[in-house]
């Protein structure tokens, strides 16, 4: 039984590790009531499971090690009762856990009248984020980064543009699939300002691994500021180099797929770039938005994220410079 003991030791060690786990994409660091309830439920289940496992192992060890008596029918009869009792206990525990599961999500299914509605559509391999508004001109598009106000329920309406994706920001809530032809939604509230990472959880093809999104929870005032900034058209180029970059964006292939509001680029095949530089990451969580990363990405997207839908557009070094200078200014 040595290996078994080693594994058990390991288990305990790892449990210790977990206790200290914090992460920006972790189910064990809940940041809102929905995730917290799931976390509590998780520990309830884990505790129960650990107890049961220890009991079973204890009985097994005793069964192996106990001194043998001559077989007697009475003892066997007693053990029938014991086994029956264990089965009954199993039934009770399971019923209890089922109810606990049911109760844990009851609150989540309640409607929230004042929820902020955000629409997220999964694409291969990025997220389109729409902030709808009763006034259509106050709605806007962004990508791969969701800003939400803390303290206010958020209702994420999920849809898929091509294949099935799954929206999962573990610190905030459980996952929900995005399925072509179906509408799903997820409601949660975040109480702590912070940046939480999420990732597509349903296998969606070549770059399933690189389909991340950020949820930026911020105080309501900051959120409103952000929202107002997103509504504006793109920053006009401030240097001749950036102006050249804008010209290139309009005349080269960029504008066929990307929108930069306020310029002639009005494509909708790729992420909206109007406020690209206000986002932290590029290419669904692959690269930070810096001028160098932008240039590298544009120069060779297929090496960085093989199979993604951004083509390698032939650009000279100067053109790359200009384009990245323009893009990095699109706050």
């Amino acid at each position, binding site marked *: 039984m040595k290996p078994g003991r080693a594994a058990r030791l390991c288990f305990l060690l790892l449990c210790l590790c977990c206790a200290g786990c914090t992460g920006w994409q972790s189910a064990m660091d809940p940041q809102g009531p929905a995730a917290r309830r799931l976390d509590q439920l998780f520990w309830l289940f884990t505790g129960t499971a650990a107890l049961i496992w220890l009991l079973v192992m204890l009985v097994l060890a005793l069964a192996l090690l106990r001194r043998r008596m001559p077989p007697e029918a009475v003892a066997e009869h007693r053990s029938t009762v014991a086994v029956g009792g264990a089965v009954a206990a199993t039934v009770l525990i399971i019923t209890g856990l089922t109810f606990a599961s049911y109760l844990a999500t009851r609150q989540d299914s309640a409607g929230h009248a004042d929820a902020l509605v955000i629409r997220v559509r999964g694409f291969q391999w990025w997220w389109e984020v729409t902030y709808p508004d009763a006034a259509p*001109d106050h709605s806007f598009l962004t990508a791969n980064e969701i800003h939400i106000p803390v303290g206010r329920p958020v209702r994420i309406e999920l849809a898929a543009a091509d294949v099935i994706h799954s929206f999962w920001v573990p610190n905030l809530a459980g996952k929900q699939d995005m399925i072509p032809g179906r509408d799903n939604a997820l409601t949660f509230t975040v109480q702590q300002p912070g940046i939480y990472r999420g990732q597509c959880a349903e296998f969606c093809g070549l770059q399933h691994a690189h389909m991340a999104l950020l949820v930026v929870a911020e105080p309501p005032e900051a959120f409103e500021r952000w929202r107002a900034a997103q509504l504006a058209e793109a920053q006009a180029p401030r240097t001749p180099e950036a102006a050249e970059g804008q010209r290139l964006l309009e005349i080269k292939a960029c504008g066929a797929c990307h929108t930069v*509001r306020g310029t002639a680029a009005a494509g909708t095949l790729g992420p909206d770039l109007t406020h690209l530089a206000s986002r932290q990451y590029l290419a669904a969580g692959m690269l930070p938005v810096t001028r160098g990363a932008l240039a590298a990405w544009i120069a060779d997207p297929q090496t960085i994220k093989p199979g993604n839908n951004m083509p390698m557009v032939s650009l000279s070094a100067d053109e790359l410079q200009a384009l990245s200078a323009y893009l990095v200014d699109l706050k």
Partner: protein
Amino acid sequence: MAVMRILAALITAASVLWSVSQPARSEVTPAEQGGARPGDGNHFSPLDQLTPANASHLKLYAAFPTGSRGAHSGAPLVMGNMLVVLTPFPHVLYALDLRKAKPEVAWRYEPASRGMAAGLTCCGTGGPVSYGNHLYFNTVDGRTIALDPASGAVLWDVQAADPALGETLTGAPVIARGQVVLGNAGDDFGARGWITARSATTGAALWKHYSTGPDAEVGIGPGFAPPYPTDRAVDRGITTWPPSAWQHGGGGVSGPILWDASAGLLFHGTGHPAPWNPDQRNGDNRWTSGLFARDVTTGEARWFVPVNPHDLYALGSTSALLLVERDWRGGPAPLLIHPDGNGHVYVLDRRTGKVLSAEPFIPVNATKGFDLAAGALVRDPAKAIRSGATTRGICPARPGATGAGAAYSPRTGLLYIPVRRACMDMEARDTTFMPGTAFTGGNLRLSPAPGLSAGALVGWDIAAGHAVWEQAEPLPVEGGALATAGGLVFYGTTDGFFKALDAGNGVELWHFRGSSGIVGQPISYLGPDGRQYVAVLAGLGGVPGSASGREIDMRDATAANGQAQALRALPPRADGGGMLYIFALP
């Protein structure tokens, strides 16, 4: 009042849409209408030599091959002793001398063409118009040209629309108070719609107003008094669109533009918003798919009526418009009649834009009746369009239940509506805007409305709000109708018949079978010999034309935006070339 009515009658009589004719008549024509295509859109000819009694004796008088295989959707023009025909793109303008025993080409004019525009439009062009001593016409590739009718010499030639942006000119210009007024087409390419006025003498731009965008560009100012209060807000051309979407939002002015000289107003419809996929343009999408009244000198809007707000099926509102003077529910009223693509005949008070009634002239299931108080149709949520989904059995189908060719006869008081009775399955898909390429985002599959023929000519009682009779046709009726004072209605069919009906009861009196389908607008005129003639251009071209030729593969149900399927019954084209037919009594 009586004076008004006499005046109106005079205007009607002289005007004539497709009729203008002898010099004697044109003298009584008010200068502003100068014998040009009159602005009331009635498609009514005051000539009465042809009557139900003698219609059956009509014979082909002359036939002139145009040499073009395109869609001959316009009307010929009679100017003095000249009959002017504009062929489809790439255009040739022929002037035929009517004094000869058979019409002969007096001169021809062929403007240089930008071939790329051929990809931007499917269906032909408007006809030429005359004003004073000049002849005006639009070319599909965006030019407006003024000619001397005597020699064919160019007076001026301006590039009014830019095909690189998807803009084309498919309607005829209208001459109003010394201005050439014209609007663009290109909704399917995301071209932003506009209407512009140019000086009739120099071609210089006078004003230009858009169908989307800020109030200043739309021409909305203090004089704007919309009949429904929601449109009184500021910059509806921006606020009813997602950010920036109005910049390529369509709304072209490709339909008829009417000119009401007495009120000094222009009336026109606006095309559908772009793209078709409604999810990409949330909001009411002002000022597309509605009707405008504009001041003729400044182009400022007076009122606007949304006909198909947030146009789910991309129908637009550029079908026929008619200025009609008649009693309405107890008193005389200046009416604007608009049989819309959504299958309803709108009756509006053209002073205010208020909708007086809207009744369906074909079976409709996309909407469930008209709410007079709100001035809008009540939509059926089951027929809503969602991006990525297919909605089945929508009636009527795009491009709409009727085109621009309805006619009205003051004699019978009936409206004659050429009708398409198709239903469609529509699937909306995300699409991306690239100037000069189609910006639609929709797939359509058309089929005839269940239990009905695919087309008809409907005789419609405006006051009662229902059809009095209908003449069923196996294919959608794409061409226009012409009513004459003699009590006849003429129209051509897609399968190549040219028919005369009794205007009162719809009984077919006479027909002629040509070599190609007819999508053009018939006219009637008094020849130099004092006889009444009827002329029409035949030649399918465009979508219906290709459906019977090689360019369309019928295995694709969405070919030609699904219309190919609606035209499955079309007989093979024997001769695709366009023809001008002129008929007269022997």
